[in-house]
Each structure stands twice: as C-alpha cells, then as structure tokens.
C-alpha cells in the first residue's frame, strides 16, 4: 500500500491514544456514565449528530447540536430529569481511527462506528452506523475533542434519539 493511502503517516503512539479516547468515549455511553460524556470535549467544543445526506448538503441543523460543553451537560440532565422515554442502552463498536489531517495544534480524525440499541427486554437492533468526524486537541497529556460530528449513514432515526452517539 502506498504511503499516501491514508495521509498523513501517523505516529503509532498517537493513533493508540486516539483509539483509547474513542474506546473510553463508547464505554461511558454504553455503561450509562453519561455525566462523564462531556468531559471528553473542550469547553467550547461543538457536538453534532447529523445524517450523511444533510452533512453532504451542508445543512446547518443537527438531530442534536451542542455548541459548548454546557449544552452537552444539559442534554444529559434533561435525559435524567425531564425527558420521557423507554429505558434502553447502547453498545458501540468503534473502528480504529484514521488521521486525515494533522498540524501543530489540531488533529483531524475519521472513525467508523456501529451502535446497537437494546430497548428493555427486546432483542438488540442496529440503531445506527456511521462515522465520527473529529477535531482533536493534544495538550501533551490529554486528548480532547474540540469538535465531533456524528454522521449517521441513514437519514432515518427509529422512534427517538436521547442518548448521545
């Protein structure tokens, strides 16, 4: 495979750190530790769930759109306190990351994922497949997301989406 197949050539240690970030990210969601979910982001980070079709058409509205960490925390508290829905859980399967761009301050990453949803006693179903389009900042110790755009392959969401992807 030529060197430029997945530009740029990425340091294996960095790839491992990004992969670990993604696995922990999936873990806190799947294990219902949602209060920890916003801590993966910088204070002014943007989080958006959209669909492939809307993303490719540059549509600005998301199925869920948080323009900072406070809005992510609000999503979690609303889920705990305000919104009514049937109890359900996710199981994320997250691919190894692909670094698509890298400079002094920021790393752009694309990662495929699948998310299964289990509603109470029902069988698990494929709720969503898609990709994370991330911008990540490395402060030397911790990697944090400054943007995560969740692009769902299908434009159809079944019943509702309340737990973040």
């Amino acid at each position, binding site marked *: 495979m030529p060197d430029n197949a997945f530009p740029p050539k990425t340091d294996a240690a960095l790839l491992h750190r990004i992969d670990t970030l993604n696995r922990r990210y999936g873990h806190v969601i799947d294990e219902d530790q949602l209060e920890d979910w916003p801590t993966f982001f910088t204070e002014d980070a943007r989080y958006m*769930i*959209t*669909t492939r*079709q*809307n993303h490719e058409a540059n*549509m*600005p*509205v*998301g*199925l*869920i*759109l948080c*323009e*900072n960490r*406070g*809005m992510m*925390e*609000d999503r979690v*508290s*609303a889920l705990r*306190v*305000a*919104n*009514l*829905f*049937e109890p359900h859980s996710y199981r994320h399967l997250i691919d190894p990351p692909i670094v698509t761009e890298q400079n002094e301050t920021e790393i752009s990453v694309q990662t495929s994922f699948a998310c299964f949803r289990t509603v109470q006693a029902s069988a698990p179903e494929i709720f969503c497949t898609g990709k994370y389009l991330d911008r990540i900042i490395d402060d030397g110790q911790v990697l944090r997301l400054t943007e995560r755009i969740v692009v769902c392959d*299908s*434009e*159809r*969401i*079944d*019943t*509702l*989406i*309340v737990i973040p992807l």
Partner: protein
Amino acid sequence: MAADFDKSCHALQKPKVETYCGLVFGTFAENMPTLSDYFGPEMCGNIQRLLGRDMELLERFQHGLDGNWKLYMENVRDTYHASLLHSFMTTFRLGRLSMKGAVEVSKGGLHHLTYSIRSQDNDQGQYDAKEIRASKDDYTLNSPELLESWPEFECGTTLAIQSLFPNFSIQQLSNVITLRLIVPKGPHKSELTWWVLGAREDTPEQRAIRIRQSNLVGPGGYIAMEDGAVVGWVRRGVTGADDKKSVLAMGGRDVERISESRCNELAVRGFWQGWHGLMES
C-alpha cells in the same frame, strides 16, 4: 402493439397538483376543491404568516414511528399532552395552557390550528402548585442560550401547531419552523419526514437562533422526542381494545371555537368526525 390499442386509455394515474406558499400538494381525488377552499381562511392565514416569504431548508430527516399514522396526527391535535408529556416545554414556559391562545378548527373538522402567546400568560400558580403535572422547578439549563428567541411575528404568537388533513403539519415553536409529513408504512408503522426551515431574510444572528432552537424538534428534540415514543405506547395500550370506545366531549359535541381556551377536544373530535365522514362516503 395492436392497431386499436389506445395509449391514452392506459396512462399513469395523474394527480391534481397545486402549490400554496411553496408547498406542493397532490391528490388523486377527482372533485377536489382548490387548496384555499379546502383549507379555509383561518388555516390559510397561518400558512401565509409562517411560509409566505422566501424560505430556506436547514435540515430534513426521517423519523420511524411504531404505530398507526392516525395516532400521530391525533397527538398533533391534542392540546393536553404537551403539559403532561413534554416537561421541557412547561418548565421553560415555551407552551402552557394558561397562555393566551385558542384552538381553531376548520369547517367539517379536518384541519386545525392551536396557538399561544408566551407574553400573555394567565397562570394563577397552577403549574407551580403541580396542579398541571409536568413542570420541574428545580431544573435549570447550564446553557440557557438554547432558548434565546426574538419576537418574529407582530401577532405575538410563539407557538402554533397546525394540521392539514390528512397527513401534514406545520409548526412554529418559538423561532423553529418545521413541516411534518406522515406516511403510513402498514397498520402499525409509519414514517415521519421533518423539514426544518429558516427565512432567507434572517440576519446571521436570527439564523443562529433558529439552528440552536432546532434542538427542540425532531427525533432528538427536547420537546418532540416523546411524541415518537408515545405513538408506540398508545399502540401497545389499545391492542385488544378494538371494541372499546373513548369519549371526546370536552367543549361540547361540535367543532366550533368555544372560547379563547385550549382546554378542549375540538381538534381531536374534528379529526375523527372528518375521518368518519370520509370513510362512510
């Protein structure tokens, strides 16, 4: 092809198509009135108020529902459930039954419009006293900018839900303007398409407000997500009760507007009266 084969006798069925405020409607009914006659003046007034200007599409998505399409269209017309089901809406005073507003139902019952004006709330403490259930006083937002809005309409309307029979709905929730079309996918499945709209005349600040507020609508919307769930719950609840009846008697037996109140069942009753009339004819 045989010489006597007349292609004009075997054409595809042609719908009658008419456009209103940029919305394209089609019907296979042969004796369909014009759209403005079919909707009536009150319904047309609201469509023109919201969409009678150059609009911009901000997003479109599909929403699968686990129930019959009529359950969702009944939910759209039901004025009680917002206070019971959408606690986000009552807690942040986006829509309360105590606000000035009314239910308008078109002649014959098919279409409806319910609206309210946030700045004119006559709440006598019922919400805070939990007489109307779904308000949560201790619940606040870390980022209240989600609810920032601007007075977009001179009439002061901040919430307007409109249904156009059979399967279309137009909604204004603060500054979020959405269209919803529901399509049956079988007796117990349906699919909803949402369109979120802005106006081309919007300033960048107004556009940003609309985009942020759109967190209220759609399958992940703070206020709309429960409607996606409740369709399935009602379907499960009514299974096995085919021979049972429910009563829709609040506000009399007719569909005429009774007062400037939204505590009535005019719109739901109108829907079923109109539906029965069409099914029997």
